[in-house]
């Protein structure tokens, strides 16, 4: 062998050696380990401080255990197994997993930055459903491919109705099945979330009426004739006035629009457009920007199978039973329970016209 070939062989093997050692280093010391190390070091410092300030023995013991765990952490890939059928035949790569928290390990920080995670917890819904990207990947470049970093970028998704259906559908797929077989989770149940995972906002009927008074006048007229004054009647009802907050909530649930059970607030009095068509944020956006057909797909009540789940929660039998109980308990007249006060469209009948002059029933 000539010296030249020997030299070439030597150079090539050196390159090969360097290349493989770099690869091996990455393989045994991946980047995510660095983030975990930083996190555990930070936590250890915090735990130490707490340990020093802690007073009771029991507390100290607990904190000591935690401190020990933080000082000798186990570096590992962390992942959430997501629900759903992601098989080869659907061109999906087996079970879907989100491994984002391998690097984004500080749960406290994540939770404080995501107020909506109370309703859509990370350990059920993962990250990629809202943020996009590749949940399985463990290096930054491929994991962050096509990602929406923040709400501003997520808004880009509102391009077609299909995008929204896909998003809501994904949320429905990820939701665990309820023990009650009658509680079926479907895409329509998630219409209340906008693209950022926040509750979609109610834009108010004024906005709808601006165009729809002319566009779909029979529909609007019928609604104006029948529905939108029910809350006036509720407000005048003696049991509503005297009732506790809890009692009032049972009225508000059906007689207002955009009622939020957690805060007890509503956006509009009476049953208005969005009470049936859902919060208008997304579809009114489409209508505003000149993509009315896309908006229509979302706003349509029948888009999510039957309309039962929209009318049903309020329109069922014996829905006002608590009123009867209320009046009976107080020994007052139960006149207010009867239909002329519960079905306002009868208010214009001749029978009702004479009644306002008769004294209102007293319950106190």
């Amino acid at each position, binding site marked *: 062998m000539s010296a030249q070939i020997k030299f070439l062989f030597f150079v090539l093997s050196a390159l090969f050696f360097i290349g493989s050692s770099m690869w091996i280093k990455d393989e045994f010391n991946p980047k995510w380990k660095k983030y975990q190390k930083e996190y555990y070091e930070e936590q250890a410092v915090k735990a130490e401080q707490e340990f020093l300030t802690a007073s009771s023995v029991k507390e100290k013991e607990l904190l000591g255990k935690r401190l020990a765990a933080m000082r000798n952490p186990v570096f590992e890939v962390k992942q959430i197994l997501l629900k759903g059928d992601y098989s080869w035949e659907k061109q999906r790569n087996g079970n879907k997993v989100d491994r984002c928290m391998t690097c984004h390990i500080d749960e406290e920080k994540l939770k404080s930055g995501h107020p909506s995670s109370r309703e859509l917890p990370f350990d059920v819904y993962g990250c990629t459903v809202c943020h996009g990207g590749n949940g399985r990947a463990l290096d930054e470049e491929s994991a962050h491919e096509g990602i929406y970093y*923040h*709400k*501003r970028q997520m808004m880009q998704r509102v391009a077609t109705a299909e995008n929204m259906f896909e998003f809501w559908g994904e949320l429905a797929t990820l939701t665990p099945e309820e023990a009650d077989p009658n509680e079926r989770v479907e895409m329509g149940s998630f219409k209340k979330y906008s693209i950022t995972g926040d509750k979609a906002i109610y834009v*108010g009927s*004024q906005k709808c009426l601006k165009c729809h008074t002319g566009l779909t006048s029979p529909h609007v007229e019928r609604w104006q004739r029948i529905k939108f004054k029910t809350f006036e009647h509720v407000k005048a009802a003696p049991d509503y006035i005297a009732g506790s907050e809890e009692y009032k909530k049972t009225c508000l649930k059906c007689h207002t629009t955009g009622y939020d059970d957690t805060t007890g607030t509503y956006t509009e009095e009476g049953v208005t457009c969005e009470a049936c068509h859902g919060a208008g*944020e997304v579809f009114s956006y489409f209508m505003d*920007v*000149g993509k009315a057909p896309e908006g229509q797909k979302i706003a349509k009540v029948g888009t999510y199978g039957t309309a039962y789940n929209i009318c049903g929660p309020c329109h069922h039998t014996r829905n006002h039973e608590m009123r009867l109980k209320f009046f009976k308990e107080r020994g007052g007249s139960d006149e207010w329970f009867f239909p002329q006060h519960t079905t306002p469209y009868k208010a214009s009948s001749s029978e009702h016209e004479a009644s*306002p002059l008769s004294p209102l029933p007293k319950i106190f």
Partner: protein
Amino acid sequence: MKLLKLGAVLVAIPMLMWCWQTKNVHAQSETKLKEMQKTAMSYYDVLYPTDTLKDWFVNNVGLEKGGGPWQNVYKPVPLHMYWFPIKHYVKPDGTYYDQLLERFKPSDCVACHEEVTPGFVNDWRESTHANLRKNPKFAEKTQQIEKLIGRELKEVTCSDCHGKDHKELHMPTPATCGECHPQQTTEFMSEAHRGRPNHIEGFAANVIPPWYPEMFRRGYPTAQFGCDLCHATDRCNICHTRHKFAAAEGRRPEACMSCHMGFDHPDAETYGESKMGYIYHLEGDHWDWEKPLAEIVPGKDYRTPTCQFCHFDQGDGTFAHNPVTKGVWRMGTVPPKGIDYKSSLKDYPHGINLPPLNYRLDVYSPENKKRSEQWVAVCSKCHSPRFARLYRQNLDDFMFEMWRLQDRAQAILDEIVELDAFEVPIKERDIFPLGDILADALGPGLLGESVYKAFKTNAGKVPVIGPILGLHGLFATGRNNPSEIEITYADMWFGDKAHAYKGVAHGQQDIAWWYGAAKVYQKINILESQAEALKHGKELHKLLEEKGRKNVAGIVGSIIGIVAVLMFGAAIWKKRRETKH
């Protein structure tokens, strides 16, 4: 006859129903008004519910000490009794009034003051307060108010607001106005729900920032005309000027323009010079300013919106004395979420837990999205909804771009801080306003761990740059704190960005660009140049220092060398002489 009876019945029933209904409506609104009156008259109790807050903002201390949490650090100047009367008003010396009152009854204010101060008396004569029933509309209103307060009113005169006697003379507060105008006052009070910036907490916003008392400490107690005059906003007469107190005046854009102009919020310029403003200038004199906002038909009554028509709109055709409910960008000074900050802005608000410094703006939170929707609805009264929405989105995107530029600027400054490359080393500069007492006064709970440590360990000698505590960069007077580069930056984020923001929001292109965005870009370049110069200076300084040391070493070394050689020579010479002998 039968027909007549039927007719009578048919007429009577709707009449009765109408009477019953209107009575009901009136009754309801009356109890509501009573409630509002109660809230309005306990104005300060509602706004400042705790004893500490009352001590800071409500209890009169005369001119003995200041207001707010730093009340013991400064003393107001005498004029302050008029800016912030609730806290500092001192009654005029009363001895000679006794003599006056022998001749004049307390109800004779007008007779005397007509000669002493004819301006405000004549002004009042022109007002509705002096002619309560000048037209049927006001007569009806007066009747409602009489019912509410339970006494008859001939006119609303001096003593109704200022007290019956010179001995109990006081400056009226919104609580005084609230007795008769409860709805307006409670609407105004509701600004507090949204937090600062707003009008109602103007006094708090004036005295809480540390640079305010610091100016006093450094011996510039009257230099703050800007602060005091602008921040005395917690009262009704900022828009309905005394002593005419006209509603019509409050509806005109000029009511806002005297304050909302200039460097930090050029609203008057941007609105006034926009097409909307010019139509108002051209035609506004012919519009009916007596008409309530809720009755205005856009295009018919007003051909173009006024400040109030957009900013007072509360949705669903209602208006209120509260322009802050719809605000999303909050004067453009709070860093928004949704930008990958490279500079120290990424840690804003740095753990500080003091409102309004304790949050980062989320333009896409459900509440803010709702506000944006309201804006689109307001603009859509005249513009196409699509145009309105695109304009609104464009404003958001524009602001994000401005904030990205600010991030760049902040990064430049961060580097200078890191290198300590200011003209004067940080340790030798003057303290941040109240820097010596901030850490101990507020503690790590309110300041956040890192900020607390920074203040504590350096006794206030810390460079604070950017939103919002870096605002002092525009006027503080310490030794090289702020330095030129800090002033350039403060100028950019507070002034130029405001011009860009307001210019786009109100549709004034030239202010938006040449006085706004273009200036922001320029400032980035200026900052870069200044930073280069500072770094260069620092390096030069280092080199010179090294060179100086070398020279000294050389001289000392050569002296030692020469001495050594001489001594060595002397020693040899001595030895040789000894051996010769």
